[in-house]
């Protein structure tokens, strides 16, 4: 019964809870038991807040029984990447330098999830400060991929992606600066959504690079991601980048009908600018065919080379990340693990003029994406070049040696999602990326949902 409950989607569980045939306490207990059994192999959680979760679940149950239903997340167990501030609950960023950090306030997203009645299971493993990993010299071990525990989860929202894939929570919040939601989503075979810059408040979320950081959502299905986004999105006056734009009922927009939707395929990113594995190319080609069969009109579009986006985002990311960490890198470098430290110091050497030139190029590259999205409703490309590599073979400077396919949409700020589009011969998941117009997450989700509904990939479970 435990694993059955942990296999439910949010949409399924919410219906059962609303009908009073499933107790939030029973559901939460099932997840806590599964975490106790399974997480020793995966290291998804650095803190399991079992008592807090059960308190949340009991409160949800009492409210539901008295007819006070807050919405579809009421009584739903979720997890948080450990860069989200949680009042009174340790928030470490997976760093020695913050192991005793107990925030005085919740992040805005955490408050919104609590307002929606979600149950907080715990804090999930991240690369140190959402930047350095996988690392073996931190207070907490790196998360493992549930499809093969010798493989990397992708990062930096490593524990969150792995936890959703392994049924250790129903959904999770991560963050995405150059792909830290979409890459682990692709490697772990789950849905990873990075909405538009300004759509979700970042107040209380530890920054990596101010102008590239986005909060993002992990879920088992597109519909569940839509339910999560509706709960956490919206204007926050405390976040200067937050936008006062109405939040639609995203799940309500998932009609399954994408007839006539114009899809722009950015093929050169993964076949010419750099070469994806054959498995990825075959899977994306098949996804293109599938979208065509669903009535979408697919045409190829051309943007600047992926390396231009990569170069631009690298200069911006390293500069901004160094600005965040400058004082601690100078005064307390021993507080960092090797990878985070040795990546972060690179920003010290980047001149102001280089940063400004990168911002200038960013405007041009963004304009290209906007232009493509004037002709197309969404853009699609691969989410990663290959499946998850062995965890011990990830180079220290992997962020520099190969461009990241998700990064162009951090640079431009457009919403983008990764959905599973198949498996390689070894049974490891592959990801398809779908991006859309600014603040049009609805269309991105609609296309992703129609694709998901037409394919079997989201029904597979890792052999953990």
């Amino acid at each position, binding site marked *: 019964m435990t694993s059955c409950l942990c296999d439910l989607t949010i949409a399924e569980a919410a219906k059962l809870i609303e009908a009073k045939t499933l107790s939030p306490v029973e559901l939460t207990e099932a997840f806590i038991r599964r975490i106790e059994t399974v997480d020793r192999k995966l290291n998804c959680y650095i803190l399991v807040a079992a008592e807090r979760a059960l308190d949340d679940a009991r409160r949800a149950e009492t409210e539901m029984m008295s007819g006070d239903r807050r919405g579809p997340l009421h009584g739903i167990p979720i997890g948080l990447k450990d860069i989200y501030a949680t009042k009174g609950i340790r928030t470490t960023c997976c760093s020695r330098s913050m192991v005793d950090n107990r925030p005085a306030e919740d992040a805005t997203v955490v408050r919104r999830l609590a307002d929606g009645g979600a149950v907080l299971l715990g804090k999930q493993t991240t690369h140190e400060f959402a930047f350095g990993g996988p690392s073996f010299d931190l207070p907490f071990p790196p998360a493992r991929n549930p499809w093969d525990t010798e493989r990397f989860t992708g990062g930096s929202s490593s524990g969150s992606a792995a936890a959703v894939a392994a049924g250790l929570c129903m959904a999770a919040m991560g963050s995405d600066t150059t792909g830290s939601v979409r890459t682990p989503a692709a490697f772990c075979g789950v849905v990873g959504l990075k909405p538009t810059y300004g759509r979700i408040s970042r107040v209380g979320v530890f920054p990596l690079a101010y*102008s590239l950081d986005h909060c993002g959502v992990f879920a088992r299905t597109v519909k569940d991601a839509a339910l999560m986004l509706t709960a956490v999105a919206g204007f926050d006056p405390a976040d200067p980048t937050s936008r006062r734009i109405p939040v639609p009922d995203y799940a309500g927009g998932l009609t399954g009908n994408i007839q006539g939707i114009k899809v722009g395929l950015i093929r050169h990113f993964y076949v010419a600018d750099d070469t994806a594995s054959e498995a990825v190319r075959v899977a994306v080609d098949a996804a293109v065919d599938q979208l065509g069969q669903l009535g979408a009109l697919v045409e190829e579009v051309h943007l600047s080379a992926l390396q231009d986006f990569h*170069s631009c985002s690298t200069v911006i990311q390293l500069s901004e990340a160094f600005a965040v960490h400058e004082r601690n890198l100078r005064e307390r470098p021993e507080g960092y693990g090797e990878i985070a430290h040795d990546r972060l110091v690179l920003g010290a050497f980047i*001149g102001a003029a280089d940063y400004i*030139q990168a911002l200038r190029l960013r405007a041009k590259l963004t304009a290209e994406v906007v232009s493509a999205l004037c002709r197309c409703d969404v853009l699609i490309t691969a989410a990663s070049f290959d499946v998850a590599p062995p965890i011990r073979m990830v180079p220290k400077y992997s962020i520099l040696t190969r461009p990241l396919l998700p990064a162009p949409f951090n640079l*431009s700020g457009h919403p983008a999602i990764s959905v599973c589009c198949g498996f390689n011969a070894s049974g490891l998941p592959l990801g398809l990326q779908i991006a859309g117009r*600014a603040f049009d997450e609805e269309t991105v989700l609609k296309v992703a949902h129609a694709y998901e509904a037409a394919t079997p990939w989201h029904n597979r479970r890792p052999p953990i």
Partner: protein
Amino acid sequence: METPEAGLSLDAFKSRVLQLGLRIPEGRDRDVQDALALVGACAQRVRRRLDSLREPAHTFRAGTLES
């Protein structure tokens, strides 16, 4: 990058690190210096791309798409 760290001798690079108020443990400084060459290549590519676009320098507006 305009800064020449990537092409410096290791000793000169170490001096530059100290000038910046940073400490990189012995044995890891070579890795960082090698990585800087990759960052420098990124910065140069940005400049070359801007040149190829003939982007006039007076049209810059700070911020991202949505800010």
